[in-house]
């Protein structure tokens, strides 16, 4: 399963193969948080950035 997110440092990220809980724990090590978004929302953001 893929999770799509906006990281607290402003990066747009997807992670595949990890649980939501593990992602949150991993980011916390770097003092980062994230806001999970849908794949559709992610695709729109990435498409705009690629233009």
């Amino acid at each position, binding site marked *: 399963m893929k999770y799509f997110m906006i990281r607290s440092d402003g990066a747009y990220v997807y992670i595949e193969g990890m649980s939501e809980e*593990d992602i949150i724990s991993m980011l916390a*090590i770097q003092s980062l948080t994230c806001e999970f978004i849908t794949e559709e929302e992610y695709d729109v953001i990435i498409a705009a950035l690629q233009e």
Partner: protein
Amino acid sequence: MARTKIDPSLVPIMPAAQVKGTTTNDSAAAGYVGEVISSYAQSVAAPTSGQIGDVTSITLTAGDWMMCGEIYATVSGGTLTELTAAISTTSGNSSSGWISGDNAFYNWTISSTAFTVPVVPRRVSISSSTTYYLKISPLYTGTCNGNGRITAWRIR
């Protein structure tokens, strides 16, 4: 002890070992060969020129993995003159564990506004869950951003 001659035509011929792969767009389950853990990050603000930062990371469970990554860096309002991409288990501004040509790759002669450096596939065998960071270290003027992906797949 008496020897018995065996008729070769009666000996079964074993075919070479073959493992059937999936024939659809599914994913291997956690813990199985073929499991993939991957992360891509875009628009990551690069560290100060000459420093080291993390683009993204993944946490692998115990096992035998192949892992690779790549960094794509862009600069606006200046020039990118050097780009290093690496994978390590240390976060932040640290080159701990970097081995040139093994898990850290340098390009020293860039004079551009965009460049890509790959980190080629490398085996990692781990006995407990371990987080790997995709590292970026650029030399630049202006504003630098990095995109990058790190991927690992369980190989046995």
